[in-house]
């Protein structure tokens, strides 16, 4: 069994022994739990430094935990960790500090894990690190276990937009568990150290595409329970989708040149297991469809500032459909997302209002998806169709992005 050493940040940099991997936990964690897991660490032959942030002034309290061995535990003072509005979402300044520390230690790879510690196991660390150490990858992204109705925002917007814009079929672009190779560490750290990037979220796969680095995906048998259930939908959209739109604006010169998409090397083999195997009860789509219809009745004036007349007409037709035949086409949804991304860039209306106005449309999509999946056990094939629709409609976004006033079908 490996022993654990806990030391203060300043002492570390002076007498740091060689480390193969840094495992970064970018949030406030239960130190006792981290230590108990780290003590049972059984990754053979690797020297690992586990690093987690702590609020300023707390390092003294952590100092008294001590020892020596293959696995070391380092608490680093990062003030940004205390100011996070959503602690379950990693903050770029915290990532940047952890990556900088890993870089200074000269590690072979840095593994970032969600501070909820669901993936804080030797098996998960090994799965994430292996493609970097053996397969020549620069970034490993996870393929999580998920049910048909899990991660809907990821299915509806984050994954399809990332795939169509940046040409990489990353299933979870906003994953909180990923691994970065030594070669990609400086680039990723630099890209999230800018003032603009620090305000948003970290999209590791996008940064890898920007820097022409190789991305891999591995199955990670992990299920995170995010503390976002008490949050209302517009706030959630503001937290997750607004940074995506800001990122689209930041990389506009890149994605306009990308054509099509490429699959990503999937290490470890096989599709991730589906939670519930399609046996979980389907939610009632009626409230979502009704929320969409309510939006259609009341938000015409706001939507008309963002969406072109053709889309408004299609939405009107959709709102008149009965619940049984309610289905939002993939192309329509793709164009809606692209139009909102454009409106975010053009500041057509206040960004808080913009994301709020998008919520009923998103609920319409969710209702449509729930109705479709009620009789299907797996959502994988359907997701592929949706992502292809986003790719096919990319020229629409490019044209509107370049000539927002001229192109208004």
């Amino acid at each position: 069994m490996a022993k654990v050493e806990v030391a203060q940040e300043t002492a570390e940099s002076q007498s740091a022994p060689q480390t193969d991997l840094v495992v970064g936990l970018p949030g406030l964690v239960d130190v006792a739990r981290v230590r108990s897991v780290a003590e049972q660490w059984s990754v053979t032959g690797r020297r690992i430094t586990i690093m987690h942030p702590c609020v300023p002034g707390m390092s003294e309290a952590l100092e008294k935990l001590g020892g020596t061995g293959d696995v070391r535990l380092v608490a680093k003072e990062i003030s940004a960790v205390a100011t996070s509005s959503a602690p379950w979402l990693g903050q770029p300044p915290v990532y940047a500090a952890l990556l900088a520390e890993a870089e200074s230690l000269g590690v072979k790879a840095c593994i970032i894990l969600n501070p909820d510690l669901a993936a804080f196991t030797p098996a998960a660390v090994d799965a994430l690190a292996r493609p970097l150490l053996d397969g020549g990858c620069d970034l490993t992204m996870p393929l999580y276990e998920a049910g048909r109705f899990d991660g809907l925002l990821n299915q509806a917007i984050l994954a399809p937009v990332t795939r169509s814009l940046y040409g990489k079929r990353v299933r979870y672009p906003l994953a909180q568990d990923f691994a970065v190779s030594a070669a990609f560490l400086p680039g990723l750290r630099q890209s999230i150290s800018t003032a603009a990037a620090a305000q948003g979220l970290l999209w590791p796969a996008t940064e890898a595409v920007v820097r022409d680095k190789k991305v891999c995906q591995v199955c990670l048998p992990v299920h995170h329970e995010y503390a976002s259930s008490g949050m209302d939908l517009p706030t959630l959209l503001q937290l997750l989708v607004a940074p995506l739109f800001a990122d689209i604006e930041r990389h506009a010169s890149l994605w306009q040149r990308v054509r099509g998409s490429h699959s990503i090397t999937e290490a470890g083999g096989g599709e991730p297991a589906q939670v519930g195997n399609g046996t979980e009860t389907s939610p009632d789509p009626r409230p979502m469809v009704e929320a969409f219809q309510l939006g259609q009745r009341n938000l015409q004036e706001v939507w008309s500032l963002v969406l072109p007349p053709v889309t408004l007409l299609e939405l009107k037709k959709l709102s008149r459909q009965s619940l049984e035949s309610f289905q939002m086409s993939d192309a329509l949804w793709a164009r809606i997302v692209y139009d909102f991304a454009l409106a975010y860039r053009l500041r057509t209306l206040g960004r808080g209002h913009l994301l709020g106005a998008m919520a009923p449309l998103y609920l319409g999509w969710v209702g449509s998806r729930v109705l479709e999946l009620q009789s299907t056990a797996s959502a994988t094939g359907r997701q592929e169709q949706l992502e292809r629709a986003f790719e096919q409609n990319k020229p629409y976004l490019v044209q509107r992005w370049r000539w927002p006033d001229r192109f208004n079908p």
Partner: protein
Amino acid sequence: MWNQVGHTLSNSMTQAMGRFASLLPGILAFLLAVVLFSLIGWLLAWIVQRILISLRFDEKLGRGTDAVTEWSPRQTPARLAARLVFWVFVVLGIAVGVDAFGASANSTIASGLLAYLPKLIGAGIILLVGNIVGRFLSRGVLIGAVNMNLQYARLLSLGVKWLVLVLTAAMALDHLQIGQKIVDLAFGILFGGIVLSLALSVGLGSRDVIFRSIERETMRASGAPVAEEEEQLRHF
């Protein structure tokens, strides 16, 4: 007799033209001051914008400017600061011009108009700001109410808009000192009426929502399982 009429007319015409001619230097001074200050303002605004852009002002302010961009979505903070500089100089120009006009004009009508001009400008600004605030708040309330599944979202939004507009109009009229008592009275009645009707419609319409909310809270407090549709869905 016709000669006398002609003479009187000619005299009054000469006097009127003379008075108008005496105003001309003042008007010219007013225009000159406005144009000159506008030019200086434009130049300074351009310089301020350049400096702020080179200092990456927008990026550095970051999240702190969310409120600014919400109220004025099409403007970046740097451009807003530049515009502010420009308009400060325009207003300064108008003030200097008005002062120059007042110094050169000596008629009672002109001095009366001059004394009223700042109030007119003030009322105009009140109306403009009230309109912007009303539009912003009504849109925010509409979107918020739709996302809360309130069936009367549009009514609520209209109510808020008219509340702000009525308040603005009353303030503008008060500022202009027009029909003060009637305006106060009318405003009180109208404002109270809108608030009462909104309170009634929201109160009556939300009975079910409030009932469900209280029921859910009570069940949570007693530890009973709460059946929620949303819990079967995970957005993230």
